[in-house]
């Protein structure tokens, strides 16, 4: 099964409520994915600043002294804001790659959830409402958010197996379904320089999109190409720094419903996820067509 929710805000007045609304949406999708949950929040970006969201198996020990260590290696000031098992490391944008390398080599116990100017990803094993509460999702603000509740089919129930998957700067993807050609595709992507953290099929889809974006395609074009190259069942919701995309496979078994008002575009695996949104009674509500790319940018 799995449940997906997504909210892309068009009217900036609604941005302070992004976390609150996403949290309500996510809580309606617990039965669809009680194993684990995760969400990507695109918060306010600060010019010249980049963020890396980290997860630590033993946060007290692993986050202690991290800021100083990273600052020293990259030769610039870093700061750390901890949220439960995760923490957001902020560094100057031009030091992002250096910081990632420093984390990889000096702190292999830390897992990198996401990096970019706006994105923060939080995900854990546990019941979705508990996971959302653990990270205080309801208090988060920003322009768009994508959440996922997981019922695992293709790989183990672990933190890293939870969605969203991020395989490029400010990019993320969540998936309901299962891919059947992910092993082959993974080999091809690895040959072309992409790297993987898990055996999960969804991570391959995420990396595929990142690989296409790297080639210069926009999100809509990358999604269009994926229809030729991905085999299996999928409903995807994808985020970039300023974009939000939706795609279903040509069979379109995996449910999807969308709503749009002047204030937002919202996605839910079911209408239940949308029922609590402001102005939903007068929203345009539709089921996304199979094999049709939808994407919004601002």
């Amino acid at each position, binding site marked *: 099964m799995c449940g997906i929710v997504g909210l892309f805000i068009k009217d900036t007045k609604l941005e302070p409520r992004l976390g609150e609304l996403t949290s309500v949406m996510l809580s309606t999708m617990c039965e669809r994915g009680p194993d684990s949950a995760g969400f990507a929040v695109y918060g306010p970006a600060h010019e010249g600043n980049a963020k890396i969201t980290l997860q630590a198996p033993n946060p007290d020990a692993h986050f202690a002294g991290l800021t100083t260590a990273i600052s020293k290696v990259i030769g610039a000031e870093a700061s750390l804001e901890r949220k439960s098992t995760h923490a957001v490391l902020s560094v100057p944008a031009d030091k992002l790659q250096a910081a990632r390398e420093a984390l990889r080599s000096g702190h292999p116990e830390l897992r990198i959830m996401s990096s970019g100017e706006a994105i923060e990803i939080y995900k854990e094993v546990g019941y979705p409402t508990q996971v959302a509460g653990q990270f205080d999702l309801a208090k988060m603000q920003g322009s768009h958010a994508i959440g996922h509740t997981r019922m695992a089919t293709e790989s183990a129930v672990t933190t890293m197996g939870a969605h969203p998957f991020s395989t490029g700067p400010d990019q993320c993807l969540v998936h309901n379904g299962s891919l059947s050609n992910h092993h082959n595709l993974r080999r091809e992507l690895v040959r072309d320089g992409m790297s993987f953290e898990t055996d999960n099929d969804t991570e391959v889809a995420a990396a595929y999109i990142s690989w296409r974006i790297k080639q210069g395609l926009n999100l809509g074009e990358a999604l269009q190409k994926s229809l030729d190259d991905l085999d299996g069942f999928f409903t995807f919701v994808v985020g970039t720094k300023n974009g939000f995309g939706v795609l279903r496979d040509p069979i379109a078994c995996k*449910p999807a*419903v969308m709503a749009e008002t002047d204030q937002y575009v919202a996605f839910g695996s079911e209408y239940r996820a*949308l029922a609590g949104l402001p102005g939903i009674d007068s929203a345009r509500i539709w089921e996304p067509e199979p094999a049709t790319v939808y994407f919004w940018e601002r």
Partner: protein
Amino acid sequence: MRTIDLASTSLRELNELLHKQTAGTNETQWEILNPKGMHAVAAGVDAPLNIDIKGSVGYYVAGMNKQANIVVHGSAGPGAAENMMSGKVVVKGDVSQYAGATGRGGMLVVEGNASSRCGISMKGIDIVVKGNIGHMSAFMAQTGNLVVFGDAGDALGDSIYEARLFVRGNVKSLGADCIEKEMRDEHLALIDGLLHRAGLNGVRPNEFRRYGSARKLYNFNIDNADAY
């Protein structure tokens, strides 16, 4: 009239109450408030009730319905009126996948659009859709009638048996063993009756085209292997 507010009454309590109603019940008028996309609202009813659901519902609304007239004043998720036996279900908005699937009797009226697999494996139900229907509709449809005011998606009537399909708009493609057939007077009369029962007017029976089985795939024949 009984009014049940799903904001304060559980879905299970509602469905238990509805299941307790029998043929001679005096409580025939029901109104259900705040469904907010819940699943299986008014599923399994077996009594001549009139049930108004005020809002949009999730999976399996009015599933297995017998005898009841159920109106959804909103849209419905996957499997609306799945396996209906008798009675009538009207959805004022859109329905998601496999509406009316496996239905054996009664009538499903969709005033908006239906998505993929509408009427899949239908076995006697009559389905009238005022809008369009999605791909793979009436897949393996056995008996009953599907009337569509708008367009049909890909692979309409794939592997169809004896159900009759009437489409007023365009058919994107026909599935294996489904062909267009001649409209005879009996079919015009049939559509007229269905529209009357559905309470819909504004279209004429002769605006529809008929599709049904070429009857080539009923039994396996090696000469037809490419068509499977």
